[in-house]
């Protein structure tokens, strides 16, 4: 199947398991239970899902959710055609038809009335009604729904409804511990361990400031960026300032502190 093939992941993504999450995910998949992954930004949630899709050899359809997303962005809509209108499936509908893993990234960003459309797909019914089209889709046996969200910016406005939450099995992710993070950085980028160790130290310094001027610490993803820049010959301190400090804060005090952390970490 052509459309199925294009969503497949052909090359093994690098993923360093932190615990037994791979086995647990496989168990959830066998039962086709919907999965929710939580954790701070850039800690490896999306990479994990990508890795699992590769491991299970299933297509993966990712939707990045945002505030303006509406139900029809997920389900599909009518478009104009020479002969009138034509129906176009949305990503969720496509996934349900072809039996893909549908991954709704940062689902809390979408409005609550939008997230409700996934409800019939996530319980025993496993169906998706397309009311505009008058069609009821039975989900393909391979179909699975995965959502991710970051409890970090939970506010009154941005939280999942209980009725949504209670349809999922959950995985909680966090930044890996020091040794593992060093390992991840060096495997991902090919940088030597020593430099990676220093980067991780800077990252941890910033994570200590969470809630004291930073909304979120420096993520593993940003550390990978820094390591990549250093590997490509950028001066380590410049690379760190550019990839670790400037993106995450506009606050002069925090910036000075992190710049200083870089200076002392690299000597």
């Amino acid at each position: 199947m052509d459309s199925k093939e294009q969503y497949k992941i052909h090359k093994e993504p690098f993923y360093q398991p932190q615990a037994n999450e791979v086995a647990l995910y496989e168990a959830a998949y066998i039962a086709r239970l919907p999965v929710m992954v939580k954790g701070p930004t850039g800690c490896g949630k999306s990479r994990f899902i990508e890795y699992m899709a590769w491991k299970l050899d299933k297509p993966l359809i990712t939707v990045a959710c945002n505030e303006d997303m509406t139900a029809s962005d997920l389900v599909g809509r009518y478009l104009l055609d020479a002969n009138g209108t034509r129906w176009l499936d949305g990503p969720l509908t496509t996934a349900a038809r072809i039996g893909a893993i549908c991954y709704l990234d940062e689902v809390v960003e979408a409005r609550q009335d939008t997230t409700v459309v996934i409800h019939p797909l996530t319980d025993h019914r496993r169906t998706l009604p397309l009311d505009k089209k008058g069609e009821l889709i039975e989900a393909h046996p391979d179909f699975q729904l995965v959502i991710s969200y970051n409890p970090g910016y939970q506010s009154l406005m941005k939280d999942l409804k209980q009725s949504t939450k209670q349809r999922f099995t959950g995985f909680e992710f966090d930044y890996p511990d020091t040794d593992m993070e060093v390992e991840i950085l060096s495997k991902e980028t090919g940088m030597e361990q020593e430099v990676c160790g220093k980067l991780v130290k800077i990252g941890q310094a910033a994570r200590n400031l969470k809630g004291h001027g930073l909304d979120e610490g420096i993520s593993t993803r940003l550390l990978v960026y820094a390591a990549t820049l250093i590997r490509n010959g950028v001066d380590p301190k410049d690379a760190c300032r550019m990839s670790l400090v400037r993106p995450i804060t506009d606050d002069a005090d925090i910036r000075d502190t992190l710049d200083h952390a870089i200076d002392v970490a690299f000597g």
Partner: protein
Amino acid sequence: MATETIERSEELAAYWQKLGCNFALVDEVFDECMKEAIARLSSTGLESYIENARFIGKMGRGAEPLLVYLEEAPAVARLIGEEVLVDLREFAYYMSTHTNFKAIVPFLQTCAAVAKRLPTRKLFMKYVELIRDMMDRTSTSVHGHHTTFASPGLPPLLKQAPRLLAVLSLDGLRNWIEYGIKYYNTHPGRQEEFFSLESADALAVLQRERHGTLLVDNERKLDTYIRALWNDSDYLVPYSLAFDELRKPMPYFDDDGIRLPDVYDDIDGVQGIDRYRAALAHMAAHRRWSQKMIVDNWSPFQRASVEVFEDSRVDYLACQRYPGLRKLFLALHPIPKEEDLQLEEQGISVFKLRLVMVSRAILDPDYKYENVHVREFVQRFFELMESGEATSAEMSSVALSFIARTRGQRDLSPKIYFENTEVDYRDDNRHLWIYIEESDEDEMFEHLEKRQKPDEELHGLPPRHYDEWDYNAQSYRPDWVSVYEALHPRGNAGRIDSLLAKHNHLAKRLKAMLEMLKPQDKVRIRYQEEGSELDLDVAIRSLIDFKSGSSPDPRINMSHRTDGRSIAVTLLLDLSQSLSEKASGSDQTIMELSQEAVSLLAWSIQQVGDPFAIGGFHSNTRHDVRYYHIKGFGEQWGDEVKSRLAEMQAGYSTRMGGAMRHAAHYLKAQQADKKLMLILTDGEPADIDVHDPQLLIQDARQAVNELDRDGIYTYCINLDPKADEYVADIFGKQYTIVDNVMQLPVKLPELFIALTK
């Protein structure tokens, strides 16, 4: 006569002759002074010295100026050149002829110390000019008197000059003096207090003007530093270095927080902020890796040694963690001179030097030294550290054997070698020691002090202090205004209800307008190329276009957005005396009309559902600005609030800036996208202790700017028909003048609706 009783050499006698002075006091010390002068001055310098001294002696101001000149002038001349001998005399004469002769002695007394701080003639003369300027401006003549009064602040200023220059640059000194002249020129007693550094604001301004990196300015930065890099946090408490010259206090930490100096100057290329970081890093390392030790049986030498080894251990561990710290520590750590170890033979105790050599050697792999003991113990240190972090106890045993090995007879000598042995960033290590027995050492006094402190009771809320902007100086007067806050007293809530009933028809009209303001949940956005749904009207039109061969409009979709409303409002009422006047063309007072207007506005805002507070203020000098809470953000518009509103009283003056800052303090804490502060006033800002009408206007202007920076939109509703003269100066374009006060109850809610639509 005294001259005849003292015998002097021919040369000195000749000078004495030239001086031509008969003061017995001078005669006694003349020989001593001349000895010094001859040693320090050239022959032309000596001539000038005697000549100028002669002049000062003949000024008719007694023996003292001459005495001081003779004693101090050679030292000054030595520092900044011999021309200054004339300059000193000229300025002394100037003071003498301008009624400030009492200041001559302090001027001459401190000029040597000042010259040390300002070591070129150019700088020194700038200082003299500064003093001259200050003197001219503070020597006042009172109308009707024929004399000019001497400057009351000048003598104390001259006495303080060396101390001031120790912490201030010349520019800083100028600013500090300017401040004193500006605010205390008309008040001799206060002026004297200011210039002798006795008043609180003298110290506050001094602090503001001083050079170096201030702790207060960088507290947050340092707090984030210790949190980020050390995962630790504590109060950072400043102590002052300026007033404890004999025993320099050191950083330390205890249960109450981390104590750091209030200011660090840059030294040896290390910035002040980095010195703070070094001190914090060292203390954080202690907090992480040091354990307490029982020290009753240790001698002071042993303790000193344990301190050095333990400090080195935590520094070593800190550098392991953050290698870049080593550079910083090295720059701040003194480099001891090994050759000075020989001074021991001259009876000088060099144990401190030995210890600091150990410390340097551990920190600095490039440090060159020979001493075998130091070498051995540095090696023992590194051997111990190879095993891991080691403990304070293990380190202390090494330290104790170091003392046992190197102890010498001379260590007990009262002459101790101190040079280059203080490590600036290290704390006093009081946290390391446990005493089992109560000791009578002076460190214990703190606990006594605590016990003696009387229990203070709080009466009401303490005042909050706010800075006030002085447009003349273009700077803030620190903590100038005291704001006392309280709940407004209560009255009869029924009055407000009857006022509202009176405006029943108006309320109905407002209600319709308010409905429009209420958050409409979904708003349709049409003409979208991408959208959630097909907009049929447009789609059909496009289809027709398409079929008929013209190009269709592709924007055939529509989408929705939710329309939220997030506005927090504070209404600030001016409750000054003028409010009780009758409104022109009406038999109601402005107060009553305001009450009506505020009630209607409060009712309106309640309808819309925005968070909303009402405060009132008036002032009676800067020491007593009253801020009344009439409605808090958390309260409902109910009888409680109405009763406070009904009791509104007019009195005193309008110090607007302080009240706005205080109201903003609460509004800032609100969670809302937009913050609006409405100020209802009937006149310009004024207070009885301010004579310059522009001052409070400019301060209010500054407050508006500050609020703007904090994301608060200020808007003024002014009831003064002549307000055009000043209201735009304060609020820019954000104001409305309600000329016809009768209209206020209608205007105010309408204005709110227009502002927040």
